[in-house]
């Protein structure tokens, strides 16, 4: 499996190159790639159907427990087959659809990467490997949604999708890490045996929430649903493939995959159930006032995604069965309808339903596919959609709590879906032929094969469910529930309650279709739309974050050097002050002192000239006073036995004066800018620092210091360093490398001064 994935990525990488040479036939070449994958996996069908699980693992980062481990069971095989089958249809279709786009090569690169990642995602047995592919699908989705990147709406939608799914992805990562922490392994299959241990862990609720956050964002569950309709900015093949058939199901796949290991608890089931139900219902309502073909399909997709989630939330055997059938059915019919919508777009120049009508003679083949898919979607016998809807209803009927509420919501939602289907898949072909931008004509073969293939597949599956999906269903449900269902899939269950419900749904849907204008009026009056408007909250949060970001940056990075310094000083004082006052010796510091008169005089002069400097209104006076300070410090060095220091201080002092004098010549007048208030504030800050430092000195010197170094230097200086001036021996021998660094600093400083003075680039220069 790893080799297939590697091949996938390589093939994708070369897509732009190959595309350049084979533009005309590229659709066929491209389609051969998912087809090849499809065949590779279908060859494993029997093995899997017989109950085998194929595993493959290569270690990747063993020290973190991360491996390329893959697992092919019923669930993953089902997904892989959907991915590759629809992939084949879409790749072929795109060969024609994308003909007039720029950079079609890049398109195939992205979508190839996406497909491969998606396959990797559903095959992964290692949580982190799964996550890697998960994120890759988000990224490729981002690139594909923004494919028409000259449009601002495309860029925005791409970003929105990425942020929502990416954010969820990060939560998922945390969830997976926590899960691994509880279970001790990143291998998913290793979780199955320790379900109870996981569920009883105190981290369990966090794990559930985090993983579901990932799943819900990816599968656009309420309240993260809004990105999906906006993702319709992508070229239609992308909508059909990623945002209907495959990527958006990754979240649902995730729930299904982990259901066995961490499911079955109240928190897990209820969260999923509630989120799914709400999504199903709200999406259906939101679809109502749409006119754009793709938006309509997107909302119906959302509703279905909600239904699927709801089914996992119900979690009964029947619900899982329903989940599975509905999943397959939806992938087939929705894929078809998206492709049909693309044909409308391509061949008529519009995607607005109200501008389409009477195309049946002009697009007969398209119509065949569209009708097959529509009937399936409406749940009409004998298509697979019918079985799907039947099982959904029957599983709801089994629910104990809130059964009728669920049922009512499901019926209403489905009725809306029916209405959408009529609008998208049926209405355009019948009635009056409406004028369109382009003269409508039948699509080329390349564009027709895909939808026909999928539609026919839907029909066949409906007619012969035991051939096509029974075994996969069995194996998949084992993966999800860890038990054999023993429920067979049948097309016809006889006349019963459920059939009645299907019928009611259909009628209701048709009714909605006919009275849609009136109902729209009512809905508008309710003006729910603002709060349910897809990206209302997203925008609020994003803009809020951005305004906050601006605000905080303006406050922090305000451009005033002195505030930066104040921040730093207060931080320092805050951190150290707290500890300093805990020091026991602080109260009993010995401040008795044996000052001699000259020490006192030097001290007084230093302090006095410091004040002179601070208060001076003349620059030159300040510099003279600084000179005095430096000078007196030099004298202090003499007093306390540091002649070399004194020498250096005097020398440096003089040089600094010379420097100042040479520079000062051109310096500005010494201006007074600060107001009294800030002076007082600064004085308080400055004094605090001073007091702090004084205390430090007193506290440290109150203790004894035993320095072996001092003794060593006294002994080794002459004997081994050959010098009597120990300070100098330290500088040129014991710690000569300090001096090496020091002279380097000087060298660089001199170069810097030189360069600063001589090199003056103008603003325009680069």
């Amino acid at each position, binding site marked *: 499996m790893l080799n297939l994935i590697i091949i996938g990525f390589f093939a994708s990488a070369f897509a732009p190159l190959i595309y350049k040479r084979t533009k005309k036939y590229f659709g066929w070449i491209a389609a051969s790639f998912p087809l090849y994958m499809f065949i590779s996996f279908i060859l494993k069908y029997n093995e899997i159907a017989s109950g085998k699980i194929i595993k493959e693992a290569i270690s990747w980062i063993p020290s973190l427990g991360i491996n390329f481990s893959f697992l092919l069971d019923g669930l993953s095989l089902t997904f892989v087959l959907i991915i590759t089958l629809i992939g084949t249809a879409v790749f072929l279709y795109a060969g024609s659809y994308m003909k007039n786009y720029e950079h079609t090569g890049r398109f195939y690169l992205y979508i190839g990467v996406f497909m491969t990642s998606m396959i990797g995602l559903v095959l992964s047995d290692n949580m982190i490997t799964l996550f890697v592919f998960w994120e890759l699908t988000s990224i490729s989705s981002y690139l594909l949604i923004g494919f028409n990147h000259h449009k601002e709406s495309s860029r925005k939608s791409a970003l929105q999708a990425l942020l929502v799914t990416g954010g969820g992805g990060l939560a998922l990562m945390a969830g997976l890490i926590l899960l691994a922490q509880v279970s001790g392994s990143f291998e998913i299959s290793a979780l199955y045996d320790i379900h109870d241990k996981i569920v009883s862990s105190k981290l369990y609720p966090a794990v559930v929430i985090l993983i579901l956050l990932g799943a819900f964002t990816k599968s656009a569950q309420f309240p993260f649903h809004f990105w999906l309709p906006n993702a319709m900015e992508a070229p239609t093949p992308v909508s059909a493939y990623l945002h209907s058939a495959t990527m958006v199901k990754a979240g649902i796949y995730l729930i299904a995959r982990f259901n066995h290991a961490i499911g079955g608890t109240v928190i897990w089931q209820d969260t999923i159930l509630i989120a799914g139900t709400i999504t199903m219902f709200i999406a259906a309502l939101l679809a109502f006032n749409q006119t754009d073909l793709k938006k309509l399909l997107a909302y119906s997709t959302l509703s279905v995604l909600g239904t699927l989630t709801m089914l996992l939330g119900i979690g009964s055997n029947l619900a899982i069965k329903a989940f599975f059938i509905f999943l397959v059915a939806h992938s087939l019919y929705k894929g078809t309808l998206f492709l049909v919508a693309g044909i409308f777009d391509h061949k008529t120049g519009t995607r607005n339903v109200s501008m389409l009508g009477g195309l049946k003679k002009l697009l007969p083949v398209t119509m065949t596919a569209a009708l097959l898919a529509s009937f399936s979607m409406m749940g009409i016998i004998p298509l697979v959609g019918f079985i799907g809807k039947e099982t959904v209803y029957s599983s709801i009927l089994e629910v104990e709590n809130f059964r009728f509420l669920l049922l009512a919501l499901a019926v209403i939602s489905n009725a809306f879906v029916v209405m959408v289907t009529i609008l998208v898949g049926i209405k355009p072909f019948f009635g009056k032929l409406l004028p369109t931008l382009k003269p409508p004509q039948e699509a080329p073969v390349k564009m027709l094969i895909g939808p026909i293939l999928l539609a026919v597949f839907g029909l066949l599956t409906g007619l012969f469910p035991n051939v096509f999906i029974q075994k996969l269903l069995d194996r998949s449900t084992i993966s999800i529930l860890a038990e054999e269902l023993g429920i067979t899939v049948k097309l016809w269950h006889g006349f019963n309650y459920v059939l009645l419900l299907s019928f009611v749904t259909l009628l209701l849907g048709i009714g909605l279709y006919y009275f849609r204008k009136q109902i729209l009026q009512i809905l508008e009056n309710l003006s729910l739309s603002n709060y349910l408007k897809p990206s209302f909250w997203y925008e609020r949060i994003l803009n809020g974050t951005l305004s906050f970001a601006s605000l905080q940056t303006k406050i922090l990075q305000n451009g005033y050097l002195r505030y930066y310094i104040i921040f730093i000083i207060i931080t320092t004082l805050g951190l150290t002050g707290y500890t300093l006052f805990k020091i026991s010796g602080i109260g009993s510091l010995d401040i008795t002192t044996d000052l001699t008169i000259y020490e006192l005089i030097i001290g007084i*002069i230093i302090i006095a000239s410091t004040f*002179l400097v601070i208060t001076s209104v003349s620059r*030159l006076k300040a510099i003279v006073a600084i*000179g005095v300070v430096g000078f007196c410090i030099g004298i202090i060095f003499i007093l306390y036995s540091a*002649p070399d220091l004194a020498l250096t201080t005097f020398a440096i002092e*003089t040089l600094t004066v010379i420097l100042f004098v040479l520079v000062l010549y051109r310096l500005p007048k010494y201006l007074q800018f600060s107001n009294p208030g800030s002076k007082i504030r600064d004085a308080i800050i400055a004094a605090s620092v001073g007091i702090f430092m004084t205390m430090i000195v007193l506290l440290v010197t109150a203790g004894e210091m035993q320095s072996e170094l001092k003794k060593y230097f006294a002994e080794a200086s002459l004997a081994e360093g050959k010098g009597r001036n120990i300070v100098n021996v330290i500088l040129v021998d014991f710690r000569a490398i300090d001096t090496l660094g020091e002279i380097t600093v000087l060298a660089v400083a001199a170069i810097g001064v030189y360069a600063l003075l001589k090199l003056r680039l103008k603003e325009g220069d680069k």
Partner: protein
Amino acid sequence: MSFLEIAVNISIIMIGLSLILIFIRLAIGPTIEDRIVALDLLAANAIGFVAVYAIQNKTTTFLDVGIIVALLAFLGTVAFAYYLERRTRK
């Protein structure tokens, strides 16, 4: 205490006093030239102080510092004068 010690102590006090006086001139100015003169004188006094302090502590190592001070104080004064002259030249 020997006479020398007493003399040294008195000297130190006298030099210390002069340091203060010089500093007062430096502080009150009024012209910048006054301050520079004061600084120059401060350096000269420091040399005297170092010499006396050397006797008080019986170490000669400090004497060399005096040479440097003499040398550099001169340079500093020249630099200031240089600045003043440039400042006043139109």
